[in-house]
């Protein structure tokens, strides 16, 4: 039987979990989350009138 290396596959000693998009995936998600929070604060933040009337 052929070894896995013959077909470019990892063997039992050097196999690792796929991690091709690990860093890129987190970085993209982080920026999207940051933009999302910014958009949320912009949309849901108190209108100026609330700030001026709230303190009496």
């Amino acid at each position, binding site marked *: 039987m052929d070894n896995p290396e013959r077909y470019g596959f990892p063997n039992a000693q050097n196999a690792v979990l796929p991690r091709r998009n690990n860093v890129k995936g987190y970085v*993209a*998600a982080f920026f*999207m989350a940051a933009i*999302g929070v910014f*958009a949320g604060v912009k949309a*849901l*933040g108190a209108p100026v009138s609330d700030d001026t009337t709230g303190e009496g």
Partner: protein
Amino acid sequence: MAEHFAQPPNWQWYITLYFYLAGIAGGSYVLATILRWRGGAGDERLARVGYTLAFPLVVVCGALLTIDLGQPMRFWHMMIDTTPGAAGLNFKYWSPISLGTWALLLFSLFSFLSFVMSWKLNRDQNYAQPPGYAKVINVLGSIVGLFLASYTGVVLSVSNQPVWSDSWVIGALFVASGLSAAAAAIAWLGRSQAGPGEARLSVADGYFALLELVALIVFFITLSMAGTLGLTFRGIYWLLWILVVLSLIPPLRNLSGGRAPSALVPIVVLVGVLLMRIAVIFSAQY
């Protein structure tokens, strides 16, 4: 180009629903925190809707994830390593599944505390702002909630499955759509307490839908570059993708302003986000 030599993980409805509800739970908590601490007078009621929603959803998330393991009683092995000679906490920073397990546990704690606080304040008929220490809990819970909403997409991106591993943007797509679905869920559940907050939630949903659209376009571009775009559009899935894109139109129209929020739009958004998760997860496997 990626080499794919893995069998599909056979992730079906349990995982699809988990990814969907985790996005809504995390997103609801974040939006509740923004409403509570940056919102206007009267937004505290909507904030409590968000906190009250997050905890039950994350309980369901834990149940779905545990059932999907196949041997539910062994779920604790996700957190505790019982390997002889290496026993201890099972924390692997390089594995999104391991990080996600811990995030789910932490978020359960934060959402439980916020759920109880909302219930207690509602019971006391007290719509005043909560005590200051709640802010620490809310902000920390929001950070973990954002991670919970996004890591489910990163899990897919770091797999070796065609479509999933061909794009690094799925985490971003899931966090944008999670926020959108959360805004829709809070707007729908809080509609009986309608006020200026409801109109601002619909505008927020418009922003999130715009972010989701951008992430969706990048997702398709990355698949096209990898040569697997056809895979995700085959069979019935092209119809799902069309429905997903169509579901973005109503919230996007909210951005033009001057339009009263419709009770139907949140339903369309919630269905559209679910269809998107179904299309991403199933089209890569079957």
